[in-house]
């Protein structure tokens, strides 16, 4: 019996603002079981708990911080060109209610 349920999958999807069809949901469930099995491979690798997770591709790259210089704004026409709906210089969306 899988520890994942259809409802769980739908709730995960919903939090990502994604809707799933029945079929898609089923596929996620199947995939979850596979992942859960493979994750146990990972867990069983010895000595991992003390390790620092590798979050960067290169650990110590000589990077620079940016000097505090401001550049001209992008033109508002460029900024809005791809938006579905605009109002004057702004992007318009249906009313956002908390």
């Amino acid at each position, binding site marked *: 019996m899988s520890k994942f349920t259809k409802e769980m999958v739908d709730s995960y999807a919903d939090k990502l603002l994604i809707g799933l069809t029945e079929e898609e949901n089923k596929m996620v469930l199947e995939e979850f079981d596979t992942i859960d099995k493979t994750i146990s491979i990972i867990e069983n690798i010895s000595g991992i708990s003390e390790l620092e*997770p590798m979050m960067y591709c290169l650990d110590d790259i000589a990077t620079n911080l940016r000097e505090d210089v401001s550049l001209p704004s992008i033109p508002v026409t460029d900024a809005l060109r791809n938006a579905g709906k605009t109002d004057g210089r702004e992007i318009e969306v249906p009313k956002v209610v908390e």
Partner: protein
Amino acid sequence: MNKSITELHELLVNKKITDKELIEESLKKSHEVEEKYNAFVTICDDAKESEITDSLVSGIPFGVKDNYSTKGILSTGSSNTLKNYIPFYTATVVEKLLNAGAVMVNKTALDEFGMGGTGTTPHTGPVLNPWDKTRMCAGSSAGSACAVASGVYPFALGSDTGDSIRKPAAYCGIVGYKPTYGMLSRYGLFPFASSLDHCGVLTRSVLDAAIVTDIMKGQDNHDMTSWDSSHIHLKDALTGNIKGKKLFYIKEICDIKNYKDANSTLKEHFKIFNHSLELLKESGATIQEESIDIDLLKAISSVYVVLSCAEATSNMSNLTGIIFGPRSDAKNVFEMMKEHRTLGFSPLIKRRFIIGSYVLQKENQERYFKNAARVRRIIVDKMKELFKKYDALILPVSSGPAKKFDEDLDILDENTNILEEHLQIGNFGGFPSITIPNGFIDNLPVGINITGNCFDDENVLNIAYTLEKMMPYKGQIAKEK
């Protein structure tokens, strides 16, 4: 158009062909290839020839994977979520090529946002393999691999998060090179998994890969992970001399005895691989076998899935249809965002997002995401330890030639074997990694991969260059079976 960059440059300089003819030919070829293999999202019919200068790429047509931002030209990531998106800025690496006089003639199709290894999930439909239309190109840089193999131009840009340049290159019989992480700026590359994403190039020769990368590389103040590579000169490093170089392969991957039911294709694949090793030895390199804990190797694909899906779900959170992308008519703003995502993303990447989100959740993060990142470190540390002893790792790409469309559904399957996934090691560590063609099985090309330590791109390319010289596959153009 079947020629290399240097050959074309020669012809242009000597006025054997005009720059205009070259672009026209490339565009014409683009339409043919589009017709036959469905390789492109956009063909830039209004592409203009550019002045021929000292730069080897001046006047040379090239293709750009459609997950690069290109100013004024549709850039979709092969996703319905961006099917009408026209950027107002150009990715750094593309800009550098344009500044050098190269001419972008098309935008190539990919697995949606690079999330896939089949070339079957672009919103414009699957890309077909130019050697056999019933087979896939692999992905995600499917369109770029297909176009270069078909002789549309000498090079195209790809991107590589798992093996997205290097596997399609093998399936299409060409060269695919992903330099060390950060040698090429990612500014303008639509992100899939930022800590694994690499820009790179697909060509028909190692020399061309070196030429193009020499132009594209460099520290970019738009990308903090890019670094100063001004001391690296890839083209100049191709001496063809690898005497004394030490290479290794991984026993657990390369020993045919590990594959209980090895079919004739797999046997042939290893035979070709071993032949390549012999050629390298003839050139004065030594090759040794190294053993790596099989559990680590088995974990590669899980680590990859967990990490790449997690980063992807965050990276693609900007796709809500508010600022760009098609918008739904929903009256509630959150419904509007949800509808955009539900309709825009293909089922495959929706599933990956859910996996990614799941492994990042507070209660799961330690067990899934962080443990995966820890195993990533073990694998990378192991490789770095080996790279102290060796100049490069050499392995066969995949389990054979391009797969039939009905063979692989690109769903995680527990039998997915190490042979198919090992190239992801190159992304884990940011290692320079190149695939070159090394033979044929049933008239379908197969490839071999050479991977080295970070910042050691010159060495990796020179080994590939030397091996390439000893084989007859350099510059080959796909011929349908």
